[in-house]
Structures are given as C-alpha cells and as structure tokens.
C-alpha cells in the first residue's frame, strides 16, 4: 500500500503531473513577459501544452553513426531525476514530518543530473556543434556548482542539519545578512541551471543553432523540453525552501499566497535578467562564477559561521 501511495505521489501529486502543469503555465508566463518586454502580444495560454504535445507526434531521428542507446536514453535520465527532485522538494513542504523524504545532498545531486544528461545526449549524437555545446555545458556545471554549494551551506551552518524539513522549520537563513548574500548567489546560479540567456552558452541559438540539442527531434526533444519546464518549478522552489522559508501551509491562505508571491518573484527576476542581458562567452561565464560569485558565496558562508 505504501508503494502505491509513493507511486501516486511520484506520478500525479506532487510529482510529475502537478509539477509539469505548473511548469508549463510558468513557461507561458516567461514567454508572455518576454513578449511584453519586446512590445509583442505573445503566445496564448495553452501554447506550451501544444508545443509539448506536438513533439510527441513527430518522428524521432537518430543520426547516422550516433550511439543509439545513449542518444535515446539520455533524455530519460534527466527527466527521471527532475521528477524525483520535484517529489522530494514538494514533500518537504507538504509533509515535513515524513520519515525520510531525502535531504539536501540528494536534491543537489538530482539537480545536477539534467545537465549531465544533456552532456551525455549531445556527445552521443555525433554532431560537432552538439559536442561544442556539450563541452560548454560541462564547463558551466563545474563553474556554478561550487558557489551553489557554498550558498546552500549557509542554512546548513545555521541549522546544523541537512534535512530539508529541519532547514524549512528553523528558517534560520531568512533575511539574515548571510542569507541575503546566499540568495543573490542562488539567483545567479539558478539562471545558469535553467540555461537562461546570460549563461545559455550550451544552446547558443545564434552560433551553435541549438547546440547540445541540435540532433534531437520528436519525443526525445519533448522530454528535454519537459525536463527544462519542470526545472522552472523545482529550482525556484528549492531556493525558496533553503533560503526563503518555503511555502507555509499551516497559516491558511495568507501563507500560501506569500509562498506563491515568493515563487513568482523569483521567476520574474529570472525572466527580466534573461531579457535584459546579452549572452556571455563560456570563458567569461567561468571567470564570473569562480571569481565574483564564489567570493560572495564564501563571504556568505563566513558570515554564517560568525553567526550573522
């Protein structure tokens, strides 16, 4: 019976279906805000749903000479990882008292897997542009993981626990000086993890024409897009749980409204950065993350150790 409940939670609520629907609506918000910034009308509300459904009816082409197994299974790794990450992060909000719903370290690893699956798929496709995209993605992962870990370390230092429910319950990092610095770092890293414009080096529409995803078509491409869409939910939610106090469900509609406000705020910040910044080169991105961002993250961790 427990297994049935777990499967229900993974597939319908709050796992795959719930997260995917929220993510598709949020990706519509992203496209609509982008359209408004560019003084356009923008797509209709159901456009992201049509896009995903359309990928499902298209043919999947496997390029000649590509590694068929890795090429077709790579999207599944990222998709599976983001589903489990969604389940763990949502459960830490909805049922904080559950026996073991995973901790911080599990989520950090799971959030790296979508990017790694992109690397795997791009190298398996035997396309030179995809290889460039894949190698850029690897460099980007190495660049942003260090400051992200340091930023996430701040609430861990403050609460002396790596359980998401404990961090959420203590809310030690919310509005503390170190917490604010860590939040800034997390927002910048979120931009890179979601592959949004200043750091979309791996997909570079103009010079790599789709980059890592160039050879993907049909359902396999749809799966990557769905993974990206679900990351739009999981990443801001994870940042909220760790650094902003998550969503308080015990406080009636005010708590829920405040939670939705925080989430939409994080998304709008990401969309506005995406629309106003030009893409950086990969060497600039690595220097930025290992230089300024890591410096701020180290400062946040030291402040947290000193008790601020």
């Amino acid at each position, binding site marked *: 019976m427990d297994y049935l409940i777990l499967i229900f939670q993974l597939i319908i609520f709050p796992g795959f279906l719930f997260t995917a629907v929220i993510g598709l609506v949020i990706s519509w918000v992203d496209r609509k805000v982008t359209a408004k910034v560019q003084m356009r009308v923008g797509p209709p509300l159901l456009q992201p749903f*049509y896009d995903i459904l359309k990928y499902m009816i298209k043919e999947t082409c496997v390029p000649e000479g590509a590694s068929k197994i890795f090429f077709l299974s790579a999207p599944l790794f990222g998709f599976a990882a983001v589903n489990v990450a969604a389940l763990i992060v949502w459960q830490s909000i909805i049922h904080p008292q559950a026996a073991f719903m995973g901790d911080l370290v599990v989520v950090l690893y799971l959030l790296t897997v979508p990017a790694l699956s992109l690397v795997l798929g791009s190298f398996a496709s035997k396309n030179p542009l995809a290889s460039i995209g894949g190698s850029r993605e690897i460099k980007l992962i190495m660049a942003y993981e260090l400051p992200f870990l340091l930023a996430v370390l701040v609430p861990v230092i403050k609460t002396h626990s790596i359980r998401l429910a404990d961090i959420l319950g203590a809310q030690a990092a919310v509005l503390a000086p170190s917490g604010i610095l860590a939040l800034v770092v997390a927002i910048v890293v979120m931009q890179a993890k979601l592959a949004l414009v200043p750091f979309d080096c791996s997909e570079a529409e103009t010079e790599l024409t*789709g980059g890592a995803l*160039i*050879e993907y078509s049909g359902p396999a491409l749809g799966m990557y897009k769905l993974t990206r869409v679900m990351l739009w939910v999981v990443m801001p939610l994870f940042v909220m749980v760790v650094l902003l106090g998550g969503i308080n469900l015990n406080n009636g509609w005010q708590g829920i409204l405040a939670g939705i406000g925080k989430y939409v705020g994080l998304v709008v910040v990401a969309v506005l950065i995406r629309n106003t910044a030009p893409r950086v080169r990969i060497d600039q991105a690595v220097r930025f993350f290992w230089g300024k961002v890591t410096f701020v993250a180290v400062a946040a961790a030291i402040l947290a150790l000193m008790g601020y």
Partner: protein
Amino acid sequence: MSFATSILTKSLNVFHCAGSPCNNCDIELLDTLTPRYDLERFGITLVGSIRHADVIMLSGVFNTKALIRAKRVYEQAPKPILVIALGNCACTGNIFIESYNLDAPVGKHIPVDILVPGCPPKPEAMIAAVAKLIAKLKGK
C-alpha cells in the same frame, strides 16, 4: 481532422533553408518574425536546427549544387514536415529559369505544400500563406 494535425497546426517551428538567394526574401522573412507582426501569437517560432522543424521555408533559386543540400535537409527533417516555397525564385525559377545550372522550380524535386509568390513577398503575404496552409491541413 485528426488530433495530430490539429496539434501540428497550433505549434509550427519554421526552419529557413536558403538556396543561393539574393537575400531579399530572407530579409522579408526576418521582418515577418519581428515584434510588429509577432508570429508567436500563432505559435510560430524560427528554429536553428532542421531536427526541431515542422515547416521548411525554401527561398532562392536552388541551383544544381544548392539543390543537393536542400534535398538532404528535407531528408533530415523529422516527419510530418511541411514545405513552403518563398518568393518567385523558389516558386517558378523567376528570370533565372533559362540558366545552365538550374533545374527550376524547386517543387520538381521537393514536395512543396504552398507557394508564396512575390519578389520579395510581403510579410502579410507570408502570414496569409501560413494561414492558408493551416486551412488546407484542416481540410477546409
């Protein structure tokens, strides 16, 4: 009208395949994608990779060498795929029809779904062509 066709008409990704054009049609195509006409309203976006495409826009005269590449692009596209011939050159061969290096029009070699005449066609003409293409798919 099947479910697949109905979904396809709502989300069209356009891939631009230029075969030795004079660039006028290409400039007009880029104009069509500017905020003034805003094709994203209808779910139409320009993509860089043929694997992501639902529509191939052919522009220019496809001479002997460019035709080989265009055929290859058509074969690489995931099916179902639609083809639009953009401008007089792609529709008929235009003034180059007598050239020694040309087997015009391109529709002889690649199954073209709709022709957009004009030298170059206006953005409005292209939008009208896409609307007619959608109506044709829906069987109206």
